[in-house]
C-alpha cells in the first residue's frame, strides 16, 4: 500500500514539476533565481521520496513548511540549515512593537473622517446633466458653423443641393441590341472586327483593357511615391541653389569659384589621362567659351558694378584692386593667343594698366596718351573737341573733373536751383517796372564778373561753330535775324559755363544790347518762355551738361541765398540803412508777401460769386435770323434794329438767397423734381456715399455689357428647380459623415435615462406578463 502510495506521490510530483516548467517557460520575464530555488527544493523532495522507497528509512522526517517560533526539541528541521545568520539581522532596529500603535492610528483615522456629504439635490443633478448635454450638443453643432457661413455669403445657391447621380448608361448597353443591316454598316463592322475593335460588349480593345489592368493600385502608389520623392528632392535642391545664390559674402563666392575652377581643372586632367579624345573636345569647348567671352563685353568697365567701382576707385584701394582684377580677367580673356607677338602683348598690357583705373579718374593721362579706342567710346564728344584745342583749356577742365561727384548728389542741387530760378523769375516779373531803372547797374556788374571768363566763352563759341550745332540757336531765335543769332551765341556760351542763378541778370544785359537795336518789346515777351526752355536745353545738350553741372557744384546754396538777399534789398530800398535783424525780418515778410502775391482770396471769391450769379440768371433769347429780310453772308451782321426787335428779354428771376450775404454762395441749382427720385440717406450696408454711387453707376443691362458679363451680373441668388423636392441639408452633402448609429438606437441603449414613470410602467408590464 505504502509503496504504491509513494509511487503515486512521485507521479504527482513529477506532474507538478512539468506544470511548473510549462508555466515557467511561458512568462519569460519571470525571475530566474526564484525558479531555481524552487527547483532545488523540489529536487530535494524527490530525492527524499526516492530514498524512502527503498524501505530502510521508513518513517518520514517531519516537514516544516512554515517558520515556527517554537521549535520542538526532538526534531530540528534541517531546512534552514543552509542559510547563515547574518550580523545585520541582529543589528536590526529595535521596533516598538506594541500593538496599540495600530489601534491609535485607526482611531485617528476614524476621528478625522467626517460624515458623508448629502447627495446633491435632484434638481441640481439634473441641471448638471443638462449642462453637460448642452455642451456636448454645442460641440456637435460647431461643425455646421463654416457651412452656414459659406451658404450665407454664397453668391448663388442652387437647390436641391444633393446632386442626383448622373444615370449614364454605358454605351455598350445603349447599343446592345443594334445590328449592322445596311451593306455599308456591315463593311464598317468587318473593318472594325479586323482591327479587333469590339463592337458590342465591352467597348474596349484588348490592348486598352490590358493597359487598364497593367498598373495595379500598389504599383501606381509606388510610382506616385517615387514621383513625389523626386519632386521633393528637386524642390529641395532648387531651394538650396537659391539660398546659395543669395549669400552675399564675397569670400564665400570667391572660394566657391576657385573650388569650381580647381575641380574643373582636375576633371580635365583626369579626362586627359583617361580619354584623350573627350579631353580634346572639352578643350575645344573651353576655347569656345573663351571666344564667346571675348566677343562679349562682359568684363569691361561698362557694367553697373564696374561703374560703381570706378567712382570709388579714386578713394578706395580695394575697389581699385577689384577693378584691376576684373580688367586683368578681361585682358586674359580677350587675348589673342596665336596672332599677337610678344612685343605687342607688352604694349597691350601697358594699355590695359591704364584702363584699369577708370577713365574719369585719370582723364588727363588718357589725353596725354593719345587716342584710346575704349576711351573713345566712353568719352563724350565735347571732350574730344577740347583735346583738339589748346592746352590751357585742358587745365581748368581737369580741375573741374576733380570736383566731379556722383550724379545722385548733383541732382537735388540742380533741382533746387531750378526752383529758385523760377521763383526769381516771378519776382522779377512783378517788379519789372520798379527794376527797370536799376537794371543797368546790375548788368554792368555782371559784365565785370563775366569778363574773367570771356576767353573761355570765346573758345567755346569756336568749338560750337566747329561742331556746327545750330539746332539750339535756331530754337532760341527762330524768327530773328542773323546778327541777332550771333549775339545770342555770345551770350549762350558763358551761360553754360555759369550756374543757372546767374543767368537771368545776363539776360538783362542782352536786353540792354538789344535795346539799342530797338527791339525792346519783342524781347520782353521773349523773357517769359526762356526759363521754361532752359531745362530743356540742359537735356537736349548732354554734351554741355556735365560741365555746367560741375560748375554748379562750386556754388553752394547758402552762398547763393546770402548773395541774393542784399541785391533784392538794394533794389527795393536803395537809400535806407538798417540793422541786420530788421533786414532779415523784413526780408522774411517780403518773401512771404511775394510768395503769395498772386493769389488774392477775397477777390477770387467775389469773382466766383459773380460768376455763379451770372450763371443762374435767366438768359435773354435772341431770335434774329441772319439774312431774313436783308442781305446775309460772311461779314454781314443783322442790323441792330432787327436784333433789338427779336431779342426777348428774360424776366428778372427771384432774388438770390445769398443776395444779402456777402460771404456766402448758396447754390440754387438743386432740382426739386429730381430730388424726389434721389436717395436721401445712405442705405444700410454702405459706409460711404461713394460706394453707393459706384454701385448705381455701374450698369448691369445687356445694353452696356457683353452677354457673358450680363449673365454674370444678373445671376439670381437662389435657383430652384420646379417640381424638385428640396430636402434639408445633410452632413453628407457638405462632406461630413453623419453618425452611423441611429438616434433611436442610441436612446434605447441608454436605459438609465428612462423616466421613473416609464420604468414603473415597464415593471407593471412585466408583472402583467
Amino acid at each position, binding site marked *: 500500500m505504502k509503496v504504491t502510495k509513494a509511487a503515486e506521490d512521485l507521479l504527482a510530483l513529477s506532474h507538478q514539476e512539468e506544470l511548473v516548467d510549462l508555466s515557467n517557460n511561458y512568462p519569460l520575464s519571470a525571475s530566474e533565481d526564484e525558479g531555481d530555488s524552487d527547483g532545488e527544493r523540489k529536487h530535494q523532495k524527490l530525492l527524499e521520496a526516492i530514498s524512502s522507497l527503498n524501505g530502510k528509512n521508513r518513517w518520514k522526517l517531519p516537514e516544516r513548511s512554515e517558520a515556527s517560533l517554537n521549535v520542538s526539541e526532538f526534531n530540528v528541521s534541517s531546512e534552514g540549515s543552509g542559510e547563515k545568520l547574518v550580523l545585520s539581522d541582529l543589528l536590526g532596529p529595535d521596533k516598538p512593537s506594541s500593538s496599540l500603535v495600530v489601534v491609535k492610528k485607526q482611531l485617528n483615522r476614524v476621528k478625522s473622517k467626517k460624515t458623508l456629504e448629502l447627495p446633491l439635490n435632484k434638481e441640481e443633478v439634473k*441641471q448638471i*446633466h*443638462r*449642462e453637460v*448635454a*448642452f455642451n*456636448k*450638443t*454645442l460641440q456637435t*453643432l460647431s461643425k*455646421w458653423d463654416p457651412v*452656414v457661413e459659406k*451658404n450665407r455669403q454664397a453668391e448663388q*445657391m442652387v*437647390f436641391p443641393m444633393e446632386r442626383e447621380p448622373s444615370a449614364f448608361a454605358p454605351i455598350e448597353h445603349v447599343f446592345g441590341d443594334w445590328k449592322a443591316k445596311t451593306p455599308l454598316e456591315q463593311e464598317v463592322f468587318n473593318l472594325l472586327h479586323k482591327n479587333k475593335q469590339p463592337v458590342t460588349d465591352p467597348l474596349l480593345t484588348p490592348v486598352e483593357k490590358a493597359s487598364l489592368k497593367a498598373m495595379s493600385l500598389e504599383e501606381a502608389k509606388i510610382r506616385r511615391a517615387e514621383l513625389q520623392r523626386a519632386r521633393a528632392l528637386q524642390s529641395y535642391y532648387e531651394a538650396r541653389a537659391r539660398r546659395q545664390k543669395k549669400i552675399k559674402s564675397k569670400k564665400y563666392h570667391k572660394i566657391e569659384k576657385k573650388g569650381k575652377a580647381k575641380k574643373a581643372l582636375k576633371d580635365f586632367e583626369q579626362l586627359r589621362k583617361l580619354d584623350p579624345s573627350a579631353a580634346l573636345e572639352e578643350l575645344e569647348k573651353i576655347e569656345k567659351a573663351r571666344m564667346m567671352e571675348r566677343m562679349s563685353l562682359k568684363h569691361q568697365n561698362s557694367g553697373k558694378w564696374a561703374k560703381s567701382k570706378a567712382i570709388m576707385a579714386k578713394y578706395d584701394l580695394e575697389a581699385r584692386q577689384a577693378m584691376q582684377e576684373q580688367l586683368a580677367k578681361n585682358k586674359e580673356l580677350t587675348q589673342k593667343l596665336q596672332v599677337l607677338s610678344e612685343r605687342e602683348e607688352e604694349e597691350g598690357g601697358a594699355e590695359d594698366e591704364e584702363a584699369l583705373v577708370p577713365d574719369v579718374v585719370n582723364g588727363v593721362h588718357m589725353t596725354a596718351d593719345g587716342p584710346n579706342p575704349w576711351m573713345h567710346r566712353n568719352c563724350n564728344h565735347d571732350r574730344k573737341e577740347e583735346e583738339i584745342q589748346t592746352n590751357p583749356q585742358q587745365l581748368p577742365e581737369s580741375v573741374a573733373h576733380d570736383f566731379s561727384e556722383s550724379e545722385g548728389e548733383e541732382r537735388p542741387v540742380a533741382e533746387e536751383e531750378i526752383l529758385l530760378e523760377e521763383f526769381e523769375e516771378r519776382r522779377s516779373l512783378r517788379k519789372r517796372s520798379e527794376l527797370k531803372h536799376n537794371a543797368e547797374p546790375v548788368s554792368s556788374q555782371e559784365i565785370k564778373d563775366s569778363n574773367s571768363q570771356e576767353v573761355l566763352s570765346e573758345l567755346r563759341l569756336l568749338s560750337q561753330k566747329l561742331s556746327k550745332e545750330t539746332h539750339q540757336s535756331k530754337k532760341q531765335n527762330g524768327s530773328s535775324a542773323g546778327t541777332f543769332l550771333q549775339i545770342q551765341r555770345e551770350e549762350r556760351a558763358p551761360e553754360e559755363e555759369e550756374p543757372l542763378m546767374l543767368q537771368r541778370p545776363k539776360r538783362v544785359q542782352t536786353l540792354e544790347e538789344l535795346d539799342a537795336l530797338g527791339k525792346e518789346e519783342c524781347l520782353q515777351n521773349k523773357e517769359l518762355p526762356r526759363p521754361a526752355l532752359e531745362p530743356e536745353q540742359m537735356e537736349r545738350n548732354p554734351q554741355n551738361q556735365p560741365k555746367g553741372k560741375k560748375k554748379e557744384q562750386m556754388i553752394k546754396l547758402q552762398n547763393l541765398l546770402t548773395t541774393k538777399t542784399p541785391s533784392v534789398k538794394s533794389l527795393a530800398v536803395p537809400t535806407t540803412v538798417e540793422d541786420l535783424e530788421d533786414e532779415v525780418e523784413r526780408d522774411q515778410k517780403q518773401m512771404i508777401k511775394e510768395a503769395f502775391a498772386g493769389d488774392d482770396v477775397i477777390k477770387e471769391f467775389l469773382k466766383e460769386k459773380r460768376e455763379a450769379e451770372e450763371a443762374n440768371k435767366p438768359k435773354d433769347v435772341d431770335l434774329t435770323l441772319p439774312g431774313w429780310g436783308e442781305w446775309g453772308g460772311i461779314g454781314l451782321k443783322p442790323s441792330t434794329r432787327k436784333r433789338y426787335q427779336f431779342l426777348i428779354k428774360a424776366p428778372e428771376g427771384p432774388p438770390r438767397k445769398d443776395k444779402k450775404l456777402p460771404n456766402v454762395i448758396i447754390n440754387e441749382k438743386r432740382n426739386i423734381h429730381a430730388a*424726389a*427720385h*434721389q*436717395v*436721401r440717406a445712405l*442705405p444700410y450696408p454702405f459706409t460711404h456715399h461713394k460706394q453707393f454711387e459706384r454701385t*448705381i*453707376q455701374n*450698369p*448691369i*443691362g*445687356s*445694353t*452696356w455689357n457683353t452677354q457673358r458679363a450680363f*449673365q454674370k*451680373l*444678373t*445671376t*439670381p441668388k*437662389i435657383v*430652384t*428647380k*420646379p*417640381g*424638385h*423636392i*428640396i*430636402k*434639408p*441639408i445633410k452632413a453628407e452633402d457638405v462632406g461630413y459623415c453623419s453618425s452611423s448609429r*441611429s*438616434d*433611436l438606437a*442610441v*436612446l*434605447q441603449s*441608454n436605459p438609465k*435615462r*428612462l*423616466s421613473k*414613470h*416609464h420604468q414603473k*410602467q*415597464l415593471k407593471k*408590464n412585466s408583472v402583467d406578463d
Partner: protein
Amino acid sequence: MKVKMLSRNPDNYVRETKLDIQRVPRNYDPTLHPFEVPREYVRALNATKLERVFAKPFLASLDGHRDGVNCLAKHPKSLATVLSGACDGEVKIWNLTERKCIRTIQAHEGFVRGICTRFCGTSFFTVGDDKTVKQWKMNGPGYGEEEEPLHTILGKTVYTGIDHHWKDPAFATCGQQVDIWDEQRTSPVSSMNWGFDSISSVKFNPIETFLLGSCASDRNIVLYDMRQATPLKKVILDMRTNTICWNPMEAFIFTAANEDYNLYTFDMRALDAPVMVHMDHVSAVLDVDYSPTGKEFVSASFDKSIRIFPVDKSQSREVYHTKRMQHVICVKWTSDSKYIMCGSDEMNIRLWKANASEKLGVLTSREKSANDYNQKLKEKFQHHPHVKRIARHRHLPKSIYSQIQEQRIMKEARRRKEMNRRKHSKPGSVPIVSERKKHVVAVVK
C-alpha cells in the same frame, strides 16, 4: 451705266437654320449708349410697377372640411400630396394638382391636434383630443376594407402635437411631457419634462435629428436632446410661444411664433437674445414654417393674414390675405419652395404662390434672363424713394390697416414715455434695452 448700290454679305446676317439665334451686332462703345443710370432707373421703376401689377398670389382654395383646419402636413416624397386635420377630427388627403380631396378619414373624436408623415411617405400619424396616437397608411384601403388605423396608442393624457423623426422610426408627441416613441412599441421610449405646464408643440431638428424643440404654455421654449434623453436649455419669453420651426439649412437656427405678435429667430447656442425679431403681424402668430431653402419663412396669424419674412429682416416682404380668410391656424411652405398652403378657421385650405408675381410654368430662356435682370434692377434701385414706395405698397384689409396704425401710435407712446422717464431719472437708472433683448425674460440652464 453702272448702278451703285449697297451690297452686304448674307453670311453676316442670315441664320443657317431657323433655330439659330438671330445675330445682333452690338457696339458697346459707352458714348453710343449714354444715360446708363437714368435708363436703368426707369427700367427698374417699370419692373417694380409690373411686379405689383402681376402680383396675383392666390392660386386655389381647397374646400371640403366641415370645421376649421387645425393642422397641415406635407408629403415627404410627393409634392402634390397634402394632409390636413380639422377641428372635428377629420383628416383629409388632398391632391394639389387636381385640387381635390383624395381621401377622408374620421380619425379622432374632437380636434385633430397634430399630424405628421413618416419620412418614407408610406404612412402618417395623427394625435387627437381623444388621447390617442394613430398611425395610418398613406394609401387608402382596398375595396370592401374598412378605414382603420395601422396602430392606435391609447395615452393617459391629451397629446397636443406630434412630429416624426427625420430618419429613424421614431416620433415625438407632446402634452404633459415630451414623449419619444419607437414605432414598434406602445409605450414611449423616453419621456422628458421640465416644468409642469402643457406643451403645445414639439419639432425635430431636420439636420441634427436628435435635437428637439418644444414650446410650453408657461411662456418657455425648451430644447431637448433625444440621444441623451435630457432637456438642454430653456428660454422664457414675454408671452407664450405657439410653435417653433427649425431652419432646414442651418442646424442651430429656429424661429418661434409668439403670442405677442412677433416672431423670434434664435440661435440655439445663444438663447439670451434672439438673432432677429420679426414684427409685422398685428395679432398672435399661430404657426410658422420655413422655406426649404432656409432663406425665408412664412407665418400664419390670428389677424387673418399670412406674412413672408426673410430670415435676416425684421420686416415682412409680403402679406397675403383674402376677404374670406379668417384666422389662419396653420401654414406650410411646399418642399419645392414655390407655394405656400394655409389652413384657416373657415374650413378652407388656401394655396398661394411664394413669389406673388412669379410666372408659373416653364419659362423660355429669354423670359428667364429678363426676369433675372428685372430682379437685379429692383435690387439695385431698391433704396430709391419711388421704387421703394411702389415695391412696399400693399393693400391691407381695413382691420389690419387700422390695427397697424393703432399699434404704431402705441409703440411711439411707449417709446416717448420711456424716453421721458430716462430724461427725468438719474442717469443710468433707466438703461437703454435693445429690442432684441427686451423680449427675453430668462434663460434657464
